[in-house]
């Protein structure tokens, strides 16, 4: 049997020690009439496959797929085709001591994982400017939902006499994130108000002000937003704070933190994001991880695992899980979240990737992305009939073009996976495409795309 090492003698010896005749005798608590018969009449899985057969099977499934390598690739919208360092694979996938360990509950034999989580938190601190980061959430969408819940808790705590149960989603937020926030709000009884983006692709500041009633506890924005436009975060913070509410910023392209103002400096209260861009493969959208950062005084309201530096009995530096009284295993129904298993290995990958890029590499990466994005904007909009949907707005790596609809098939035939058609995700009209650029996008790709649009 695959992966089971007991011989028949082993099994016989164990059964004898237990004092039963067969393994069946250990299942006396399952009524006989619903026990699955050993011949598998009820559970109809395939017969077992060996390494050879399963490899063949997986390769045959992959035959009917294509991936970013098969195209000049311009799709992003939350998952980006960056280069992933081989170091991330070697350390995170092939060193069994990270990938086959559990959550580091026992610090004395988990210093490896604990130290990397501490270093990961430190890197998120370096990127966001916030003193507190947790060890990661499931993804950007659920991180945003949890941040909204946390913002609500903070406001509810600060204004106990008021009922402030409205959450405002402002501007162009990734539709998958917005849908997730909506689900979480509905189930926990919070009211959701959506303030759509204005004609310029940004948060409509006047509409936001109107939505900021005294009931509003949290404003959530995305920057760079779903259309790629960099929001004026500082002024959104100001209007939010004028109403004594919390501002949550979500970031879908974490690499934008290489050049943009830190959320902490902008005055954001909680910053979350999707970390896939940093060291994680695309994998159809998961697993990657959500990052989650805030100011020090908010730490006791944060969800998720947090690691702290401490010492061992001899005074030697050591790391341990901290502040567990926020968490479900201690606080049960009063916990800040139900999260338990997170995406630790993906966070480790991000740490490795950030270290591999290093301070200088991360800056250079950001510059390359900006330069290539600018070249793409110039080249694509030089084509007759192609224009920016939101002209004169600052963008980092993504932008929306308007062109004639229905070109997708032709592009694919020419080996080009163009921008995401926005009508397909209900975020725009036919002929609008969200184009994403990474350091892997070449001039040749861009020129080819432009030629095909002409």
């Amino acid at each position, binding site marked *: 049997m695959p992966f*089971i090492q007991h011989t028949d003698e082993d099994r016989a010896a164990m059964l004898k020690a237990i004092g039963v005749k067969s393994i069946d005798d250990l299942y006396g608590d399952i009524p006989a009439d619903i026990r699955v018969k050993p011949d598998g009449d009820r559970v109809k899985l395939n017969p077992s496959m060996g390494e050879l057969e399963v490899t063949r099977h997986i390769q045959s499934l992959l035959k009917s797929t294509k991936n970013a*390598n098969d195209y000049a690739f311009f799709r992003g919208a939350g998952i980006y085709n960056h280069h992933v360092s081989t170091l991330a694979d070697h350390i995170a*996938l092939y060193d069994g001591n990270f990938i086959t360990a559990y959550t580091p509950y026992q610090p004395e*034999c988990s210093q490896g994982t604990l130290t*990397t989580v501490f270093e990961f938190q430190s890197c998120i601190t*370096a990127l966001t400017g916030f003193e507190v980061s947790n060890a990661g959430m499931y993804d950007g969408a659920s991180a945003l939902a949890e941040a909204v819940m946390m913002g609500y808790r903070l406001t509810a705590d600060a204004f106990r006499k008021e009922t402030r149960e409205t959450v405002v989603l402002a501007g162009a937020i990734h539709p998958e994130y917005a849908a997730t926030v909506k689900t979480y709000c509905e189930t926990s009884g919070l009211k959701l108000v959506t303030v759509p983006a204005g004609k310029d692709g940004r948060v409509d500041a006047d509409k936001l002000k109107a939505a900021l009633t005294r009931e509003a506890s949290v404003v959530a924005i995305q920057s760079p937003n779903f259309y790629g436009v960099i929001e004026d975060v500082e002024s959104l913070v100001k209007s939010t704070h004028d109403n004594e509410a919390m501002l949550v910023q979500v970031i879908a392209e974490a690499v934008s933190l290489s050049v943009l103002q830190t959320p902490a*400096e902008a005055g954001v209260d909680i910053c979350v994001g999707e970390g896939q861009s940093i060291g994680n493969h695309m994998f159809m959208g998961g697993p990657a991880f959500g990052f989650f950062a805030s100011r*020090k005084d908010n730490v006791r309201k944060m969800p998720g695992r947090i690691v702290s530096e401490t010492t061992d009995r001899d005074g030697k530096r050591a790391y341990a899980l901290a502040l567990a009284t926020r968490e479900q295993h201690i606080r049960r129904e009063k916990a800040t979240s*139900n999260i338990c298993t997170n995406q630790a290995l993906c966070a480790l990958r991000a740490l490795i990737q950030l270290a591999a*890029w290093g301070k200088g590499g991360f800056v250079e990466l950001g510059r390359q992305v900006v330069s290539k994005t600018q070249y793409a904007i110039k080249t694509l909009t030089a084509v007759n009939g192609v224009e920016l949907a939101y002209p004169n707005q600052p963008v980092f790596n993504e932008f929306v073009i308007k062109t004639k609809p229905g070109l997708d098939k032709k592009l694919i035939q020419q080996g080009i996976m163009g921008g995401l058609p926005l009508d397909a995700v209900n975020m725009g009209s036919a002929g609008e495409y969200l184009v994403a650029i990474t350091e892997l996008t070449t001039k040749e790709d861009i020129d080819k795309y432009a030629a095909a649009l002409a």
Partner: protein
Amino acid sequence: MSNIPTNPADRLLFELSKPGRRCVTFPKLDVPEVDIADALKGAKLRKEPARLPEIGELDLVRHFKNLADKNYSVDKNFYPLGSCTMKYNPKINVTLLAQAGYTKAHPYLPEQDVQGHLELMWNLENYLREVSGLDEVTLQPAAGAHGELTGVMCIKAYFEAKGEGDQRTEFLIPSAAHGTNPATAAMAGFKAVTLKEAANGNIDIEELKKKVGPQTAGMMITNPSTLGILEPKMREIAEVLHGVGAQLYMDGANMNAISGIVQPGDYGIDVMHFNLHKTFSVPHGGGGPGAGPIAVRKHLAPFLPTPRIKKNGDGSFAYDYDRPDTVGKVRSFFGNFGALVMAYIYMTQLGREGVRRMSENAVLGANYIRVMLRDYYHVHHDRTNAHEVVFTDKKQDKENGVHTLDIAKRLIDYGIHPMTVYFPLPQNTGGQGAMMVEPTETESKESIDYFIDCMKKIAQECKDNPDLVKSAPHTTPVKKVDEKTASTNPQLYCSMCLG
């Protein structure tokens, strides 16, 4: 931050950093370089580069290698962490996953480009449907707790659709349940009502009957329970709940005991989650990622998150977003797809026979451990158990003043990762510290016997030299860690990363 350690092997990445060092280089820019401030006019920029470490490749590799070696892991150590199912993670899972067909698959590729991925998800859903005996499966939840939340949301939506949303405000949770259960109920807007178990650890049906009513939305039950024993009255429990119109949720974290033995659907449950990172060998990754698919009965299927995967008449696969009653999205895209691929490879390898054998051998090992150690440690329920067994420190506490945590730490000195400790909580284990042992089916008898020997030795040490046990571990890179200060005076980042 105190002094930087002299041995580079003991330093943090930030302490290894030196300006100008570098691993990754980029190809020369093939487009004109722009001035960032100029190109991003109107946007505020960073004042200084993020203070990431600057490090050469060998130092980076060595740093992580040294850290990896400080971990205990399934690849290196027996790891009988109860409730976590630390089984062997086949290497082929990782090898097959690390192919461009998966790593370079973008979620917004058109359907015709991802047919093999949709087929894999479709097949995996079918596998889980078979193992659960329920009607429909979603693979989207990222972990067990996320599956719980999704399942409880479906139940809530079901009652709202029936017009009973305002009435059904309570969820019953057995007192020994995992912390995620009550936390989930609360997150979904329910009142978590604790249900006390009977003295034998099973659900107390009379108590249950007293607590249910028109206000009950459902109950979350773990089977086998967190006390490591099968619940013999599952069908009766389901009947009691259904009798008042409520739903039964099964926490399937412990499916390693009963997969292929009984289809939980036959118990009458309405919804359950799987922890693919426990039962179906997705590596735990030091805390994740996992996957927590849920399986539901037909009446709850309309509420599952979108998209669902559907098979067209011509055999091709497609996303189905046309689900007007869906609870919505619980995360982005389709789930932890990479984790799903690994679980699928594992299940395909096990097949029908293998899944049953997996459970049988897991249960065999755990019962063997109970019997072999029952004279040395107090067994909380000394009766046939499932895939894990809960001991307590009653004997060592009373006789030697040694506690669960000490015993756990002493195991580390013998090269074994501690069992799960203090779960279930002392209130569920007679006021004593629990030691929950789950060997899994993939451990050899020799490894299990070595564990048994070590536990016997430790029992003797508790008598002969209790201080040796209480001051453990002695062989680790760090000695007993001051976890209290970590929480009272948290230091959450390296000071070198912030200006």
